[in-house]
């Protein structure tokens, strides 16, 4: 058995740390306190840490006074295991699944032979775990999609998927934070604005948090959409 975690230097200042391969919450919950601990204890040496499902890469500043010693990092990781993980939250995000704002829900329903109502239930009665952000600013990588909803990405991506679109791609589901080309199937739309860079608003969800999608009507969607200060229901897990 390989020792865990594994270390790999990609460059003089990039160190990748990998845990057992796979998309699982257990690995994420192991990585999160370690990430927080390393950021805190190496704050003068680190530029940032980037996360994947089972890996994180430490990006060190180009010029630091002391060379990084791998043993020190291993020690920090060991120490981090004794640290209590920060509290996690559960968020409720309103989503309208009407075909008026979700252009792929009808074609997906017929190609998968799942009635629309069942498809909505399958998507909205699950709880999703936020693993990390990537692809676009504010784009969440969510784990926990029902196997029945797994759908290969479109062979030819759509030129524009609108901001707020809730979509399915492969084994994942997510929300487009801004207009973007994309190959995922749009099954809903949230009136909530995830990312507003001009107002420097970051999404409130943090890796480790859970997300639930709450179905709303088209009327509710239009009413909530005009509320730029819309805040989301949430609770500490």
């Amino acid at each position, binding site marked *: 058995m390989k020792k865990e975690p594994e270390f790999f*230097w*990609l*460059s003089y200042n990039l160190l*990748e740390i990998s845990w057992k*391969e796979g998309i699982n919450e257990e690995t994420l919950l192991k990585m999160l306190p370690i990430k927080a601990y390393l950021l805190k204890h190496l704050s003068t040496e680190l530029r940032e840490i980037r996360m994947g499902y089972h890996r994180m890469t430490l*990006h060190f500043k180009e010029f630091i006074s002391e060379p990084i010693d791998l043993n020190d990092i291993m020690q920090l990781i060991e120490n981090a295991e004794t640290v209590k993980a920060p509290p996690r939250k559960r968020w409720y995000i309103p989503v309208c699944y009407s075909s008026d704002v979700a252009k792929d829900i009808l074609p997906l329903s017929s190609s998968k032979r799942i009635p629309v109502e069942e498809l909505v239930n399958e998507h909205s009665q699950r709880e999703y775990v936020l693993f990390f952000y990537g692809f676009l*600013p504010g784009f969440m990588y969510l784990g926990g999609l029902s196997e029945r909803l797994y759908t290969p990405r479109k062979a030819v991506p759509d030129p524009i998927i609108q901001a707020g679109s809730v979509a399915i791609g492969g084994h994942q589901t997510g929300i487009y934070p801004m207009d973007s080309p994309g190959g995922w199937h749009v099954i809903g739309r949230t009136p909530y604005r995830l990312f507003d860079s001009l107002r420097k608003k970051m999404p409130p969800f943090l890796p480790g948090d859970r997300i639930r999608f709450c179905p709303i009507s088209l009327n509710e969607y239009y009413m909530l959409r005009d509320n730029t200060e819309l805040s989301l229901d949430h609770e500490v897990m």
Partner: protein
Amino acid sequence: MRLCKGEISIIKAGPFTSVQDAGRFGYADFGIPTAGFMDAISAGIANLLLGNQACAPCLEVFAGGLALKIDQPCLLVAAGADADIQVGGQVFRTHQPFTLKPGEVLKISPFRSGQWLYFAFTAKFEVPAPFESKSFYFPITSKSRFHDGDKVVMHFSMPEYSPTNCRVGIRDWKLFRSLEVFAGPEFHLLSVYNQETLTHKSFSLSSMQNRLGIQLNEPLEHNLPEILSSPVFPGTVQLTPSGKLIVLMRDAQITGGYPRILQLTETSISLLAQKRPGESVTFSLLPPPKPT
């Protein structure tokens, strides 16, 4: 030193002119890419020639086509692509500081070589710095590049010396074809034959390129599966299922699902940025950076 507020008028923006600095760090948690100078070495040279900090914001010009004027006198210097800078009847070269006077129009000829030209100013750009950087990156900034007729507010500080006609001689490092690389995390999954091909054959740049990445022409046949989304950086070389190599550049997303077979050094990223479609490079594999 005198300080005064003025502006740059972009008369002709050219195909892709923007403000860039060293980039955004610390916001990858929210999926925000680094952005920043495509060729950080040339931008650093331009800045240092004026006594600015190496990472001070510069005007980054792709391929030329730019015409601008300013309303306060300012000392400028260009570095990067090989270009003539025309001001009235005068022609300045790169690495040659010159004064631009109010009303004079600065124009750039098509580049003789290279792709990115940097202008450093004895002035500060008054543009928004969302997430601690002035680097243009849409939608973090309101636009990705300048358009004809745009204006930029500047805080000019004309230094109390005037440039002579000297030009600083800097060896043209951009002529090198060999890019120093480290093995990427998935390099060892490649067949020995592919590893040899990658590190001994040359690869040419395709025209599929922008600030996010550069696709290379020569495919590498392989049977590597895709990976679970993992961190990527500027300089990461990804291998797509069809065998195309994509070198991620400054605006690249922060995670990717393609095998990461090489990682360029900082210097190599800048060097590659200056190569044009059709030009070729080789990958020179460095020993692992540190023991593990």
